[in-house]
């Protein structure tokens, strides 16, 4: 690996979208025969950089050099033809076709226009043998596990004489054994001289396979490091960013003595709750008036925990008690009946109903709980909507315009209003402040503090440590789909301590030897 020239060089890459500078003067190098991890939190610009590389987006500025020649791909097909192949998180193959066909479709060996099936199978077998994979190439792809499908996708990618292989979060739905199998294949390909760009959210995996790491943050290059020279804690700090810690504290909101809160029967008591291939079993209690922060990197299982506690996904392990009585949160309806509300991180797809009005979006959960036969009287609707539009300063203050016309921050406030009028006892907020402007962000943070003072319990999921530290009474830390530790947020806890937990798990000092 050392001494050779990079197969791929990207320099001075900038890319803007309306209102957002997604990439700002970013540089990236990739050497033949290396696995190079691209790291960064949400909005860091990883996916934009990959899309620029694979020709999905054009660049505003900067150059891409592949094998010494400057290139400018106008589409994924062109990139593939030039030797840059991509395997995405969702396997983009056709599960209804055979394994062999998935590898070769579009490039089938033919004679006189007729597909030569036996030749295709033979070549598929030898290609898969190269990946050390012994499966029936005639079987339908859908009959194999996701890991095998992922590997078939890689086989398809490398058959096209790939020089650069981009693996975009290929491991997010694989279990440990499957990951090991994938890594074996990746090492094999690396030894064959292929350059691999690897995106993952699992720190263990980065240190398990990557030779070098490039970190992006807020669309800018933080740096390029050799894996052996960058400790895990250092990586986490570079991803999250030190400067966040010097932000002024929300000083008008004194942190309560956690002891008051954690007394008596907990409002919610989850024991060994878990779901296969989503999150390992965890135990968590939340008391009335308590804000529990859920910290962790993107993809660490934060969202999965939130969804399990709301019944959005069904747990296949463990039990839940609400106010001491055993219950099962199998559906959102069941959770709502027990006084739980949930704002999804995915505001557009799982939150607002864009074509309905602000008013309709706000009363939706309350109305759903009452059933369609008992409509909320119009006067009560007006009253509620007006009160919350004012209290949360939702703009524009017209309750009859479609919510799709509002800005992200205001849509988030509409969602908060939707749950607040149901007067929940526990509100689960998954990334409520992501992608919204600073003003709205502060308002929402202040609101959470007020709600907790009023006795409502809040589970606050956020990627921003400072925000979690500022608001929470207790903090649970997620790492690689596991809840690694729970900390009481007293004077001894600061961002460094949490970063150490994220980097290395509970009780360890964040320094791999």
């Amino acid at each position: 690996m050392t001494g050779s020239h990079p197969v791929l060089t990207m320099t001075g890459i900038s890319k803007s979208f309306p209102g957002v500078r997604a990439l700002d003067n970013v540089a990236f190098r990739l050497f033949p025969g290396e696995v190079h991890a691209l790291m960064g939190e949400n909005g860091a610009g990883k996916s934009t950089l990959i899309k620029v590389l694979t020709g999905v987006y054009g660049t505003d500025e900067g150059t891409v050099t592949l094998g010494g020649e400057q290139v400018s791909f106008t589409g994924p097909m062109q990139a593939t033809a030039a030797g840059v192949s991509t395997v995405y998180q969702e396997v983009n193959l056709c599960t209804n076709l055979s394994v062999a066909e998935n590898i070769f479709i579009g490039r089938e060996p033919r004679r006189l226009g007729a597909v030569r099936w036996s030749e295709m199978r033979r070549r598929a077998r030898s290609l898969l043998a190269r990946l050390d994979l012994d499966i029936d190439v005639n079987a339908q792809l859908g009959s194999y596990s996701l890991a095998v499908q992922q590997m078939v996708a890689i086989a398809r990618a490398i058959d096209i004489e790939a020089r650069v292989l981009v693996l975009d979060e290929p491991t997010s739905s694989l279990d440990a054994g499957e990951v090991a199998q994938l890594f074996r294949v990746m090492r094999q390909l690396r030894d064959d001289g292929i350059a691999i760009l690897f995106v993952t959210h699992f720190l263990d995996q980065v240190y398990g396979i990557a030779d070098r790491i490039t970190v992006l943050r807020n669309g800018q290059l933080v740096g390029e490091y050799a894996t052996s020279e960058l400790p895990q804690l250092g990586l986490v700090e570079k991803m999250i960013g030190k400067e966040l810690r010097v932000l002024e504290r929300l000083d008008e909101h004194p942190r309560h003595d956690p002891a008051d809160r954690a007394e008596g029967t907990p409002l919610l008591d989850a024991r060994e709750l878990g779901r296969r291939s989503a999150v390992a079993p965890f135990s968590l209690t939340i008391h009335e008036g308590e804000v529990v922060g859920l910290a962790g990197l993107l993809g660490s299982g934060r969202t999965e925990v939130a969804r399990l506690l709301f019944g959005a996904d069904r747990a296949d392990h463990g039990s839940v008690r609400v106010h001491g009585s055993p219950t099962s949160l199998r559906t959102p309806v069941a959770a709502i009946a027990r006084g739980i509300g949930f704002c999804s991180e995915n505001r557009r797809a799982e939150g607002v109903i864009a074509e309905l009005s602000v008013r309709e979006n706000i009363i939706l959960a309350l109305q759903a709980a009452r059933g369609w036969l008992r409509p909320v009287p119009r006067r009560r609707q007006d009253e509620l909507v007006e009160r919350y539009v004012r209290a949360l300063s939702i703009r524009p203050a017209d309750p009859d315009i479609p919510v799709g016309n509002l800005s992200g921050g205001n849509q988030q406030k509409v969602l908060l209003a939707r749950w607040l009028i149901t007067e929940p006892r526990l509100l689960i907020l998954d990334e409520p402040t992501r992608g919204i402007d600073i003003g709205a962000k502060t308002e929402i943070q202040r609101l959470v503090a007020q709600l907790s003072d009023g006795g409502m319990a809040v589970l606050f999921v956020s990627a921003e440590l400072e925000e979690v530290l500022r608001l929470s009474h207790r903090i649970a830390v997620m790492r690689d789909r596991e809840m690694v530790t729970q900390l009481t947020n007293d004077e001894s806890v600061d961002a460094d301590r949490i970063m150490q937990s994220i980097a290395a798990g509970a009780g360890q000092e964040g320094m791999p030897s």
Partner: protein
Amino acid sequence: MSNRKAGYRALTTHRLFWPVAVLVVMLAANTVYRPGFLSVQMRDGHLYGSLIDILRLSAPLILVALGMTLVIATGGIDLSVGSLCAISGAIACLHISRQPDQNDLGGVLTALALGLGVALVLGAWNGVLVAVIGIQPIIATLILMVAGRGLAQLITEGQILTINSGPYKAIGVGHLLTLPLAIFLALAAATVVAVVTRRTALGLMIESVGGNARASRLAGIRSGRITFLVYVISAACAAVAGFMMTANVSSADGNAAGLWVELDAILAVVIGGTSLAGGRFSLSGTILGALLIQTLTTTVYAMNISPQTSLLFKAVVVIAVCLIQAPGFRARFARRRAPAAAPAPVSEQPKEQVPA
């Protein structure tokens, strides 16, 4: 001037602008072709005229389309309504034909209850297939579309079942307050559907499920129940339409009653501005759509063109309406016009900032 321009823009981009425009043009064309078209006369205490005819003949379509609107608003489709019309009409006619006195009001009411009851059961069957078993609506309702025709013929034993019942006939051709009774029935059904959807929260739930099924689930809406319900309502509407169709001709023909009405109904809904993808629905738009289709048919008929050929015009209307509403077409059209429009001051809504 810019104000007037903006007003014009608001008008032409209104959901129902094009349907209304087409309807007006058609009525105008008719008036030019036949100056007496718009006149309404009083004869034997009843009003007569082309406009009245259009209203009367469009009543069954309005009924079916009302139910279809709700189904489409949830993102589904109901292909079985034509067959359901035939079945309910056939059952009612069969029951009446077996009465010793076909004019007995009680017997007619029992017949209507029977027909409606069977339709509700079949609607529930559709609802279970879609909401419980989770089969695609177009496929689930295709089953009854095919089998229902057979059932209708089974009921009438393949014959055209003719009856002679005054009360039943009145549903189709009777009069009330100088106007055809069918108009009142359609109006009553529209009112009932409007009240049921807009005075309760059903309409909101339907639009929510059709607009964003995942978000609706997370807001705690039991979408299965809502979906089930709209298929039952659609079946009920189809049943009443079936009574009207059979009463019109005082006979039940399992083969022909309600043939292709599902296609006309879907068309009416789409013309009325309800998207086939689900979400916001407009009952008044649907009624307008149904009137437009009936006016088209009447116009073609009045111009001495074979009624079947009206299908040609219908095809043109389908294509035109769908193209106007299709985002793909609008985008292409807009792109071509964009350079010319560029100098005009842009006052678009501020776009939301989306981190990439």
